[in-house]
């Protein structure tokens, strides 16, 4: 039971409705609260997908704390080291030396040589003008047999620039060296979670005899290097788009952006592009649409008018998802999002026009700390934050699209929503753990 020190705030204080919601920021950017839902992956989790890689962070103790314990909680403390920045390092002009000698020191002390080193610099290095080019060039010359990858935890740049997690997905593929082309090989770029083998995209590729390389599938370091030989690279998450495009541009691959979508037309268009690029037959779209419609009907039959809430950490296209469910008679009552994706403008306009009463809540607004975490009736949440804020134990435990894709993704999600309606979960125990799908040694 939540112990309230400050009393409650009015339910209306942070709420808006789709009809009034601004674009792309429906709420003002003010002080930020952090709800205790931690299932989304962070840069430590993602970096660990490179087999045998070792991560080194160069930052102040306060920043180190979060990343050190992320690694420890996922049982990977032995693949993580850090160099601590002290006050004098900000002024003594020896930051480059500290990093170079620090990395050397760590590599000497490791029991075995890593396949790669992901070296993360942070906000203060941007402000100091640290010569990162020199650092990485020197480290690469000292350790030519280790892939040294420049990575960034410069959170201060994320609101007006690229998120560190997006930069990481660029860096992780930046040092793949050109290899002879393997035409029947395709990369999935930038995913944390493996894509369902049952999705049309995967089925088409497998039926066509393609080898699929995806770090999220736990491929070896050798296979990771072989990604350079692929003819096609596909990104399905917005955070992987830039990495996919840059890798493809550099090594002459075809880049396909096939984001998880809830629009039948967009899914079909994506699959057509894949078919064309990979010279594969297009699937029977009418049948696939029929399967998705049938799944949505079954879901409606099972949960009826049960309320549904969706949060933006669950799927990258939540407005599209809300529209799909609402148009099939399902009762989506709340969306939790602090900002809308640029990719969702059409869905935003659609919902604004057709469902103006749909409630919209932020997750980070200061009032959300004191918002009653309850809902007056049974509610099914899609996503951890929606579960937390509505206080429900009926929720789909999903982050970052959950490996779902295409029509198959819609069918499977319907099943997950129905199951969430039937079965309760221990919300706290599920959502406070970091990196959904990974080992968690956390003790909530």
């Amino acid at each position, binding site marked *: 039971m*939540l*112990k*309230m*020190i*400050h009393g409650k*705030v009015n339910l209306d*204080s942070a709420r808006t409705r789709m009809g009034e919601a601004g674009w792309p920021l429906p709420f003002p950017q*003010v*002080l*930020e*609260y*952090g709800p*205790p839902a931690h299932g989304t992956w962070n840069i430590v989790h993602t970096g660990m997908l490179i087999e045998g890689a070792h991560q080194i962070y160069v*930052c*102040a*103790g*306060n*920043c*180190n*704390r*979060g990343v*050190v*314990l992320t690694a*420890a*909680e996922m049982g990977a*403390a*032995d693949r993580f*080291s*850090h*160099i*601590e*920045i002290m*006050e004098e*390092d*900000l002024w003594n002009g020896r930051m480059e030396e*500290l990093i170079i*000698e*620090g990395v050397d020191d*760590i590599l000497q002390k*490791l029991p075995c040589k890593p396949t790669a080193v992901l070296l993360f610099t942070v*906000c*203060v290095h*941007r*402000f100091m003008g640290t010569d990162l080019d020199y650092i990485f060039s020197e480290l690469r010359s000292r350790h030519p047999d280790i892939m040294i990858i420049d990575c960034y*935890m410069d*959170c*201060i740049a*994320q*609101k*007006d620039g690229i998120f560190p997690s997006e930069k990481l997905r660029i860096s992780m593929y930046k040092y793949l060296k050109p290899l002879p082309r393997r035409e029947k090989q395709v990369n999935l770029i930038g995913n944390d979670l493996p894509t369902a083998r049952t999705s049309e995209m995967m089925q088409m590729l497998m039926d066509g005899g393609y080898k699929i390389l995806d770090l999220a599938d736990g491929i070896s370091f050798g296979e990771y290097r072989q990604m350079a030989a692929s003819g096609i690279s596909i990104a399905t998450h917005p955070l992987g788009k830039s990495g996919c495009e840059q890798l493809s541009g550099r090594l002459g691959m075809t880049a396909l952006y096939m984001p998880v979508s809830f629009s039948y037309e967009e899914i079909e268009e994506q699959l057509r592009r894949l078919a064309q690029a990979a010279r594969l037959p297009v699937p029977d779209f009418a049948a696939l649409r029929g399967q998705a419609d049938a799944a949505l009907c079954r879901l409606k039959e099972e949960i009826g008018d049960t309320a549904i809430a969706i949060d933006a950490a669950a799927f990258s296209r939540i407005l599209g998802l809300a529209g799909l469910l609402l148009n099939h008679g399902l009762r989506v009552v709340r969306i939790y999002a602090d900002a809308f994706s640029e990719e969702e403008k059409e869905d935003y306009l659609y919902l604004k026009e057709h469902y103006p009463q749909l409630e919209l809540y932020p997750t980070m607004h*200061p*009032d959300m*700390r*004191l918002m009653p975490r309850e809902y007056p009736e049974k509610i099914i949440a899609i996503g951890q934050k929606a579960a937390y804020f509505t206080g429900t134990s009926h929720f789909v435990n999903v982050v970052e699209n959950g490996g779902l894709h295409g029509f198959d993704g819609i069918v499977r999600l319907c099943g997950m929503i129905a199951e969430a309606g039937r079965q309760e979960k221990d919300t*706290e125990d599920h959502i*406070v753990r*970091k990196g959904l799908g990974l080992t968690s*040694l956390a*003790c*909530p």
Partner: protein
Amino acid sequence: MKQTAVRMSTYTADVSGVCSALYELGGMVVIHDPSGCNSTYNTHDEPRWYHMDSLIYISGLKEMDALMGNEEKFIRDIEEAARDLKPRFIALVRTPVPYMTGMDFEAAAMRIEEETGIPAFYVPTNGMHSYVYGAGNALALVTGLLAKERSAAASGKEHPLRINLLGVTPLDFSVGSSLSSLKAFLSDRGFEMISCLAMGSSAEEIAEAGKADVNLVVSSVGLKAAKVLQRRFGTPYVIGLPCSFGGEKSRFAENLASQLQKTAECGFSVNLCSGNCDVNHSEKKAYIIGEAVTSYSIAAAFAEKYGFLPRVICPLDSPEELMADEILFLHSEEDIVKQIEEADLVIADPMYRALAPAGADFIDLPHEAYSGRIYRNRIPDLMHLPDWGTEHDL
């Protein structure tokens, strides 16, 4: 190299320390940071986050605002939230970037206080010190702010000895039974609790802190607050934690209880974590790693129980008064590894296992400020430590 850590974790830093210390006091804490500090704090350093609300926020600092010295948004956002949420006080917390840009937090705090009418202060953190520094400063500041002047005591009226507990946060005591056992220990010996800084006491109780006859500093975090109370009310303090093993009474703990009585009477403060252990270091090379006051107190109780005194290694930046010869202040992985390379026994958080020599016996003593929530359910009651002799050759 002193600044590299190949396998060592890192302690909770000053920023989280401030938040932890002020969590239950009804204030609003604003970390001037772009992102990350809030998540680190509420995931790894704050076991109360899910079940107890507290107004702890980050400012969402943007690069251009930091570069251009635009503090208006920071101040305006705080004022807006404060008018809406009406906190008892506002604490501003600094992180590395505003530290580098030299933002004037004292001026910002003054302006916020003037414009909202809510007391505002700044805790001089920069993310590069440990929680002992951050939480210690925060407790000192908030004690100065909340503690009321005491009225003249009723003459001739007998009353039990009144006490404040100073330096209690989940970072050193977690959320298990340690605090209730500590309170019970003192209550059983006739002490009346005025307040506990800062877990389980309201701001109203802390306002009465000046009424105490003596203060008990149970971790390094509490020392600066003890100094504030000493300066303002003349209250003396005792440093130490009444630890015991296996449900038995410990001389160290009982001595601490009687020392509280003596200190209240004579008015001289005493540090029981320095030169007060009558058991010699044995040939057995034993070490206990952790926060100075709790570790030394555990070591003293251990010495009584098992006949030899483990040497305390404290990796934290601690107040000078605690820099006793008995405690080794070693901050780097390199120094700690070197110190314990021939150890027969290491007592420390399980995350130190990676640093211990292969042949050494290792006793797990999880510490929330080191391993966060990973071993939370194995953190022992520090007042009733288990008999380690049943599983280890002591």
